[in-house]
């Protein structure tokens, strides 16, 4: 008679907390040593940091200057306009978050598209005399406000430009192909700082004299043109990953070239390069700090000027730690949103 083999429980040292500890921290004698050293190291580092943050640091430099960090030289009595703008963005982001739609509902897309000119008008105002929204020239925007404006407008404007450049580089028409390739390779061969300088000096030469762009607009143009070249190369990588069979199948059902691109190729290509593009946008966000060299005061520029205040002499650490924390929060949010986007769109992967 056949004996049924018994189903046994694994030994207690292999599962649960004890098993995990044994497997991951104390599996060999050098792992035991490594674990002990790491624990000691982590203890001393975190004790030093916590003591400084909680006891030694003089955070009044940050609390006193909080408004300056956030909006810089934006007039105090007009600060509500920044808050309303922030409210609009948070509200839309919240709706996008809870809708969880794939695709995002149309009214929300329209809402986002409308929010940009709306916020632009709200922040900038109409003219000096206007009683409701007096002009606040973008050249005195500074602090986190300027950082966010540079980053968001740069990202939003460079993305479609980058996609067009990527498509242009694959074009069958030699003129367009050469033009896009030369543009992309030139920009990629030049540091952002020089692009920023060039945009300050050269842009007025190319534009008709009636159009006078302020420093912020010129910096923004430079950053957009710079970022677009990198976006283009990322998108090109995604386009190259689409199998030829997708083009053939799309043409075989009768789609014309524009529909093949818009419905079949680009949606798949862009989805594939989300991590690369978000990575590039994060670096664009951090690169906004370079505008200090053309005389603009972004968050870091403001931080630098705050350290020069007489009453807070010597408090560099607090100021820069605060600035770093804000940069980290922004970049981490982008990174997290990207991962969520990948998950939402990830259904139906091959």
């Amino acid at each position, binding site marked *: 008679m056949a004996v049924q083999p018994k189903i046994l429980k694994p030994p207690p040292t292999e599962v649960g907390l004890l098993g995990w500890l044994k497997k991951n921290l104390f599996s060999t004698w050098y792992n035991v040593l490594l674990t002990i050293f790491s624990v000691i190291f982590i203890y001393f580092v975190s004790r030093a940091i916590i003591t400084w943050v909680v006891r030694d640091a003089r955070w009044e430099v940050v609390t006193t200057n909080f408004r300056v960090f956030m909006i810089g030289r934006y007039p105090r009595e007009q600060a509500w306009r920044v808050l309303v703008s922030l409210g609009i963005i948070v509200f839309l982001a919240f709706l996008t978050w809870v809708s969880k739609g794939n695709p995002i509902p149309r009214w929300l897309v329209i809402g986002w598209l409308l929010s940009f000119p709306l916020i632009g008008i709200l922040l900038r105002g109409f003219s000096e005399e206007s009683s409701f929204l007096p002009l606040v020239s973008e050249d005195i925007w500074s602090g986190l406000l300027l950082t966010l404006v540079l980053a968001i407008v740069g990202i939003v404007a460079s993305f479609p430009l980058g996609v067009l450049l990527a498509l242009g580089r694959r074009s069958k028409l030699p003129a367009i192909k050469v033009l896009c390739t030369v543009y992309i390779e030139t920009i990629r061969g030049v540091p952002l700082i020089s692009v920023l300088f060039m945009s300050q000096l050269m842009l007025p030469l190319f534009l008709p004299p009636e159009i006078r762009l302020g420093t912020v607009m010129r910096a923004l143009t430079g950053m957009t043109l710079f970022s677009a070249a990198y976006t283009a190369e990322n998108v090109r990588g995604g386009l190259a990953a689409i199998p030829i069979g997708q083009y053939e199948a799309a043409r075989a059902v009768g789609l014309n070239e524009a529909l093949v691109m818009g419905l079949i190729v680009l949606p*798949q290509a862009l989805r594939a390069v989300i991590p690369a593009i978000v990575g590039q946008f994060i670096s664009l966000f951090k690169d906004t700090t370079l505008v200090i060299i053309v005389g603009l005061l972004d968050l870091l520029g403001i931080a630098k000027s705050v350290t020069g205040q007489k009453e807070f002499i010597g408090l560099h650490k607090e100021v820069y730690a605060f600035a770093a924390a804000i940069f980290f929060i922004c970049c981490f949010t982008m990174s997290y949103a990207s991962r969520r986007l990948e998950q939402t769109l990830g259904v139906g992967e091959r």
Partner: protein
Amino acid sequence: MHNDNLNPTEDIIIYRDVHKWFGDFHVLRGVNITIKRGEVVVVCGPSGGGKSTFIRTINRLEEHQRGDIIVDGIELTNDLRNIHAIQREIGMVFQSFNLFPHLKVIDNVSLAPFWVRKWSKEEAARVAMELLERVGIPEQANKYPGQLSGGQQQRVAIARALAMQPKIMLFDEPTSALDPEMIKEVLDVMIELARSGMTMIVVTHEMGFAKEVANRIIFFSDGNIVEQNTTEEFFRNPREARTRLFLSQILTH
């Protein structure tokens, strides 16, 4: 005996001395053939013989460089309007399915009717559902292609091609990438389609399918048609030595 309702003598595809080169390689070497409306033609032959290239020139996935191709009265030239007009009339099923992986099954099928035929969303979805029922997988409509088996994917691909209500269906080795147990489900759909009177050109080595529904078999080798005949005659009485060799290779096991 199928398609009594159509004029069986009307020529839907005409090839006159069609040549194609890939670089220096002469793939199609003066192909002449006429295919009638409602005909089911099986194309077979050794690999590298040009049979795939031949059917891919019918809907301009490959461009021919000499000779004339006339499909449903429209000549295939470099005129994009002609090319699109012909591509709308021809459905194609590929060896590797080529479904759109980012779209649900039903959207794969309803995409072209909606965007190209300009049907309403509801109409396109309704027709797509009918076609999915016809190929036997309506319950998969809201899945993504990656969640389906190979046989199911190929049946979706057939439904997608049929959604444009084509006059001609091209099949480029539709069962070659399938596991053996899935070949029958795809062939059954193709047999039903053939019996409904569709004009079909099928590159395949499934000789059972050929015997069951093909009106004509074309043996393609070295860039041209070596031999063509009615199905019965082709198997019973192959004339060319190359044909006999090929048949002995694929029929012995």
